[in-house]
């Protein structure tokens, strides 16, 4: 019994030392969804980089798209007594119990890039981008660029019913509202893929008088835009000039297209969600000051004027 008590007090002592320690001794668990897209691979790379820069010991767990793996990972992080947990949740529901366990163990949980349907007090904060805002930035760019000239827009939507597709459409339409010179003439889903983006763009070009009626393309992600650019070229038109191309995500390949003058603008969905998360965590551990429940990442607009080749070089090593 005495031994157990001694052990317990030693643990408490250790916990106290941890609590007051600087970021240099932080141990953070990161439960990642998996690597289903290039963007997610880049997010993983950047999270590891950010942790290394701050001297944080990052424990990484890949859930391979399964919630049960994420729950297991979180329980194991709790058992290991990490200082904080980063969670990129694969689905929105079913987190209450395990988040409560983390809360009981007094380990703050920060959500990355997606949110959950759980009481807000169960997690410290959520770091995500605003999908509606992204669409809005793209729309504003187009409104400013055409500067009052009449312009028919075609839209390549993401996977029907997915939240990025719904929100990026909403934001773009909001930016175009009241601008009578801009009109969305066709809108179809390209399933976020290059192949479908190309196929759908081919049909848009046929349907709109060989593309002569189209002045701009808005794609819900860069991959569809890359496919569509090829379709525009094969139809004998110049993407970026005859048809303006604006898309969202800022993956490396779109910067190559921008450098070649074939794409005009992209809105970044930053894979650096961990940076702001670590900053908020550091402040919280230092002063005990709780951050806002939602930290919105920047939706930065890149155009051909932003030295696309340089950005491409920076981004291509991130695992996109």
């Amino acid at each position, binding site marked *: 019994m005495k031994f157990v008590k001694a052990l317990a007090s030693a643990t408490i002592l250790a916990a106290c030392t941890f609590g007051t320690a600087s970021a240099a001794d932080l141990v953070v668990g990161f439960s990642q969804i998996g690597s289903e897209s290039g963007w997610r691979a880049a997010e993983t790379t950047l999270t590891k980089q950010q942790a290394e820069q701050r001297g944080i010991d990052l424990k990484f767990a890949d859930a391979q798209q399964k919630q049960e793996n994420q729950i297991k990972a979180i329980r194991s992080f709790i058992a290991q007594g990490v200082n904080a947990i980063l969670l990129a949740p694969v689905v929105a529901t079913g987190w209450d119990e395990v988040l409560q366990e983390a809360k009981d163990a007094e380990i703050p949980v920060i959500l990355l890039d997606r949110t959950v349907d759980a009481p807000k007090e169960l997690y410290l904060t959520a770091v995500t981008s605003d999908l509606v805002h992204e669409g809005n930035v793209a729309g504003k760019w187009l409104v400013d660029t055409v500067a009052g000239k009449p312009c028919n827009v075609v839209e390549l939507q993401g996977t029907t019913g997915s939240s990025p597709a719904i929100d990026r459409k909403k934001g773009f339409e909001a930016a175009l509202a009241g601008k009578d010179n801009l009109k969305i003439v*066709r809108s*179809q889903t390209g399933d976020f893929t290059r192949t479908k983006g190309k196929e759908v763009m081919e049909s848009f070009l046929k349907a709109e008088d060989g593309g002569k009626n189209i002045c701009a393309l808005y794609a819900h992600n860069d991959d569809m835009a890359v496919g569509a650019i090829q379709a525009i070229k094969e139809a004998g038109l110049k993407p970026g000039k005859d048809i303006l191309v604006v898309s969202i995500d800022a993956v490396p390949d779109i910067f190559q297209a921008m450098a070649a003058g074939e794409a005009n603008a992209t809105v970044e969905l930053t894979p650096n969600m961990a940076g702001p998360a670590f900053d908020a965590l550091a402040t919280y551990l230092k002063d005990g000051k709780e951050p806002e429940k939602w930290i919105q990442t920047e939706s930065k607009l890149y155009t051909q004027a932003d030295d696309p080749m340089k950005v491409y070089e920076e981004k291509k090593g991130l695992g996109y």
Partner: protein
Amino acid sequence: MTSTVRTYLGRLLPQLIALTIIIAAISIIFPGFLNLQIQNGRLYGSLVDILNRGAPVVLLAIGMTVVIATKGIDLSVGAVMAICGAVSASLITSGHSLAETLLITLAVGILCGIWNGILVAVLDIQPIIATLVLMVAGRGIAQLITEGAILTFNDPGLIFIGSGSFAGLPMPVVIWLVFGVLVALVVRQTALGMLVEAVGVNREASTLSGVFTPVLLIAAYVLSGLCAAIAGVIAAADIKGADANNAGLWLELDAILAVVVGGTSLLGGRFSIAASVLGAIIIQAINTGILLSGFPPEFNLIIKAAIIVFILVLQSPRFRAAFAFVSIPRVAGKPTEREAK
């Protein structure tokens, strides 16, 4: 001779009627649909788009037809497409010549086919389970090859396969036409086709009557793997990159659907490659038509399903029996045993 042509046309009649109705319907909704013009030395228009975009499913359907005729099924073709696309992209970017790249890629497709074939023919695992293994694992293998990213390439030779043209037709169309005719000739001008049908109807009886079934079964899956490899190269060349996550995704289902729309029974036995090719073109015509029609994307799948149900009803033996007077005599007058059931 005329009777052979008539039998042949009779076999393809339901598919031809369905295709004609669909094309007529689309050209009513979208008048420019039938326009064809020469642009940059190649035919340009929506009809060419259908033949071109349909290339992967047409190729998969050719292999799938033979597999289904043996009473099997190949669920792995979509994943094999992804693997082969990834292999070709990684070979060409690591500096191999075009010939080497294509040879190795096709060899990988054949290898995938041998794997499926051995599971089915030698280990006697049910085809749907045997090929499910590669369907699930294949996409992972492809992702390992591309390291999770879209592997892009700039080799003009490889790109030509996807977006070049020959004799005014896009390369993918030329490839499936030539390949389809070749396979049809090989199976129909030799006894191979008949042996495949025999295995499909009754594997045991065929074995007992001296057909070397394991080799024949493996050959069917090898053909399917080869078709998937060609389709994978075309899909990658088309977008100048190998997308392991999305290349060929769900296309195995479209290929099976093409075979069914083509009138080949999933129970094995009699098959027609030409009809399956028509089936694939019908599916692509529906897809292209929906894109041109300008309906909101929420309707895409519903419209597609409704048309498919309509075509399948047209083909059902009961429906044909009820409307025997409009059906052509051979089919109505001399139903095969299975149709009579």
